C-alpha cells in the first residue's frame, strides 16, 4: 500500500475517468465530432488560391485583341466578369463597394498598342486582402500577353515579337497549389491542440473545483498516479481523433501519404503527449474550470497565428519566429507536413521531434513540481 506507484490504484483512476468521460455525453460528442466537423468545414471552406473572383470590365475598344484577352482571363478561372462594359466611374464605385475584386480596363487604342508590341491594359485590384487577389494579379500579365500574341500569329504581316522575358516556376510538393494539402495536416495539429489541451486542463481543474481532489489526495493516490490516470485516457482520445482526421484527410481530400505511416504515428504520439501534459500543467495553475479554459485560449490563439498554420512562418520577422519556436504546434506542423507531403525520413524530421520531446520533459517536470506544491 505504501509504494509510490501502484498499478491497482492507476487502474482505479482509469476506470473512474472512462466512466465520467462516457457519461458526459456532450464532451464525448465533442471529442469525436469536433475533429470531423472542423476538418470538413475548414478543409472545404479555406482556400488560399481563390478562383472566380468578380471582375468589372471597362472597355473603350472593341477589337480582337481585347476580346481575346478577356476570354483568356475568364478561361484562367481567376476572373469572372460580372459587370461588362461599365463606365470607369461605375467600375470604381463597384470596386469601392466590394461588389467586384478587379476592374480590367482596355484603352481605346489597345489594338494599335498590341500591334506595336506594347499592349497596355489596366487591372485595378481590391488588395485589402492580399491573399484573395495575389495569385490572380500575378497571373494576369502573362495571360494577356499570350492572348495578344495568339491573335497576332493569325496575321503574319505583323512583326512577331514573342515574350521578352519568361520565368519558369516549379511549384514543388503541391504543384497544383491545392490549399487542402497544406490545411489538412495543419488542421490535425490544431484540432488536437484545441481539444486535448482544453479537455485535460478542465478534467483536472474540475476535481479541484468540486472538492474531489482533496478527497482523492486524502486517499492513498500519489500525484504521479493521479497524473497518469488523467493523462492516459486523453492520450486515447487523441489517438481516436488522429485516426478520424487522417482517414478523413485521405478519403475526402486525397492528402498524399508520402512518408512512412509508422514515423507519422510516432511523431503524432509525441505531440499528443506534449498537449496532454500542457493541459495538465495548466490545470495545476488554474483554480476554476473557467480559468483553465481562458488559459487554454490564451495559449491557443498565438500558437495558431505564429506556428505557420495560418500565415507563412518564413514571412514573419525574426522575433516572431523565435516566439513561434516556443509553441509545440510549430514543430509538429513541420514534421507532419514533411512526412505527409514531402515523404521525409526520420533523419530529416528528427530535430523537430527531439524538440517535441524536450517539451514533454519540461512540461512533465513543471507539472509534477506544481502539483506537489498545490498540496501544501
Amino acid at each position, binding site marked *: *500500500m*505504501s509504494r*509510490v506507484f*501502484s498499478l*491497482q*490504484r492507476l*487502474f*482505479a*483512476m482509469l*476506470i*473512474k475517468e472512462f*466512466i*465520467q468521460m462516457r*457519461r*458526459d455525453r456532450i464532451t464525448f460528442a465533442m471529442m469525436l465530432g469536433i475533429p470531423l466537423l472542423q476538418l470538413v468545414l475548414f478543409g472545404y471552406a479555406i482556400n488560399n488560391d481563390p478562383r472566380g473572383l468578380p471582375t468589372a470590365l471597362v472597355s473603350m475598344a472593341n477589337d480582337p485583341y481585347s476580346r481575346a484577352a478577356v476570354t483568356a482571363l475568364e478561361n484562367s478561372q481567376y476572373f469572372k466578369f460580372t459587370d461588362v462594359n461599365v463606365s470607369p466611374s461605375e467600375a470604381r464605385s463597384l470596386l469601392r463597394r466590394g461588389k467586384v475584386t478587379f476592374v480590367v480596363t482596355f484603352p481605346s487604342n489597345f489594338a494599335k498598342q498590341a500591334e506595336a508590341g506594347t499592349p497596355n491594359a489596366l487591372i485595378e485590384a481590391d488588395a485589402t486582402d492580399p491573399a484573395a487577389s495575389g495569385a490572380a494579379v500575378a497571373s494576369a500579365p502573362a495571360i494577356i500577353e499570350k492572348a495578344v500574341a495568339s491573335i497576332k500569329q493569325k496575321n503574319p504581316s505583323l512583326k512577331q515579337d514573342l515574350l521578352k522575358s519568361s520565368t519558369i516556376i516549379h511549384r514543388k510538393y503541391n504543384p497544383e497549389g491545392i490549399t487542402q494539402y497544406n490545411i489538412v495536416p495543419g488542421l490535425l495539429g490544431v484540432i488536437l491542440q484545441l481539444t486535448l489541451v482544453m479537455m485535460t486542463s478542465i478534467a483536472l481543474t474540475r476535481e479541484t473545483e*468540486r*472538492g*474531489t481532489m*482533496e*478527497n482523492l*489526495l*486524502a*486517499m*492513498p*493516490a*500519489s500525484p504521479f498516479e493521479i497524473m497518469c490516470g488523467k493523462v492516459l485516457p486523453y492520450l486515447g482520445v487523441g489517438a481516436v481523433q488522429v485516426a478520424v482526421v487522417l482517414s478523413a484527410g485521405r478519403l475526402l481530400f486525397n492528402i498524399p501519404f508520402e512518408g512512412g505511416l509508422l514515423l507519422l504515428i510516432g511523431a503524432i504520439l509525441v505531440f499528443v503527449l506534449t498537449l496532454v501534459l500542457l493541459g495538465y500543467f495548466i490545470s495545476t495553475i488554474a483554480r476554476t474550470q473557467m480559468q483553465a479554459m481562458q488559459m487554454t485560449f490564451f495559449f491557443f490563439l498565438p500558437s495558431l497565428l505564429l506556428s505557420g498554420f495560418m500565415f507563412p512562418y518564413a514571412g514573419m520577422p525574426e522575433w516572431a519566429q523565435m516566439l513561434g519556436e516556443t509553441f509545440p504546434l510549430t514543430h509538429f506542423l513541420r514534421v507532419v507536413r514533411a512526412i505527409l507531403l514531402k515523404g521525409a525520413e526520420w533523419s530529416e524530421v528528427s530535430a523537430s521531434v527531439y524538440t517535441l520531446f524536450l517539451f514533454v520533459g519540461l512540461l512533465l517536470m513543471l507539472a509534477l513540481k506544481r502539483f506537489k506544491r498545490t*498540496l*501544501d
Partner: protein
Amino acid sequence: MNAIEVKGLTKRFGDKLVVNNVSLKVKPGEIVGFLGPNGSGKTTSIRMMCGLLKPDEGNGQVLGYDLIKDRLLIKSQVGYMTQKFSFYEDLTIEENLSFVARLYNLKPVKQHTTATLEKLGLLSRRNQLAGELSGGWKQRLALAACTMHKPKLLLLDEPTAGVDPKARRDFWEEIHRLAADGMTVLVSTHYMDEAERCHRITYISYGELLADGSLHDVIADAGLYTYTLTGPNLERFIPRLQENKGVQQVAPFGNSLHVTGTDLQVLKRALKPLEQHEDIQIEQSETNLEDVFIKFMSDSTDNIQ
C-alpha cells in the same frame, strides 16, 4: 499508544498564521470533538493530521506513524471525510464505492462494494447517480466510503452541516457504533448538540487550544456562573444588564434569559435591582456549553479583522 499525539503544529499560508502551536492527544477508541469558531484553523489542523498538508513547525505521530515522514502510511489507515461532499456526483453510488475499494486495494472489489451498499441500505439504489442523493444520504454515503477500508482513525470535518435532525442523529449513532468497534474519531464542529455527544472536547480558537477535557470538565474549568431569568418582556432588561462590568453575557433562550459572568458576587449585585419585579423569577442554573463557547469567542482576539 495514542491514536493522535501531535505537538506544536503550526501552519502558515503566506503571511497568515492559520494554525498556531496546536498540541493534541487522542486515546484509541475516543470520540473527540474539535471545536472552534469559523476560520479558526480546524480544517487545516485536520488536514495536517491526515497527511494532506505538511506542518511548517511541530511534529508528532498519528497511529504511531511520523507525521512528516510517513504521510502515505497515515493516509492508508486514516479515513477523512471532507466538509463538502467530495465523491463523484457523476458516478453512481456503486461506482463511487468501487472506486474507493480499488484505491485502497480491497479485494474482491465487488464483495466489499456490495457489503457496504447493504449496510447503507442503498442496494436497490446502487445505480443512482450520487449527485441525485439528498444531503443526508450523501453524507451517509461519504461516511460509508471513508470507513470502507476500516481505518483505525476517522477524521470528520463538520460532518453534519446542512443535514436534518433525524439524519444527524442516525449519523451520530453510526459514529458511536464505529467507536465501540475500536475506531478513534475526531470530529470538528460548531454545533453544541454535536459537541455534547463527544467523549471529550477540545476548543481551538485562531490556532490556539483554549480548552480540553470532558464536557463536564470544560464547563467547570471555564469558571462561569449563570442565572436564568424567566418572566414576561425580559428583553427590556438586556441593555441595562449588559452595561454591568461583571455581566459577560446576556442571551435570550426562548422565554428565558441567561445571564453569565465569572464573578458570582458581582453577578448577584447586578441582578439585585431586578428582584423588585414580582413577575420575574431569578434562579442560579447550570452553565451550558454554549455559554462557555461564547466566552471563549469573546475572549480571543479575532485575527480576521
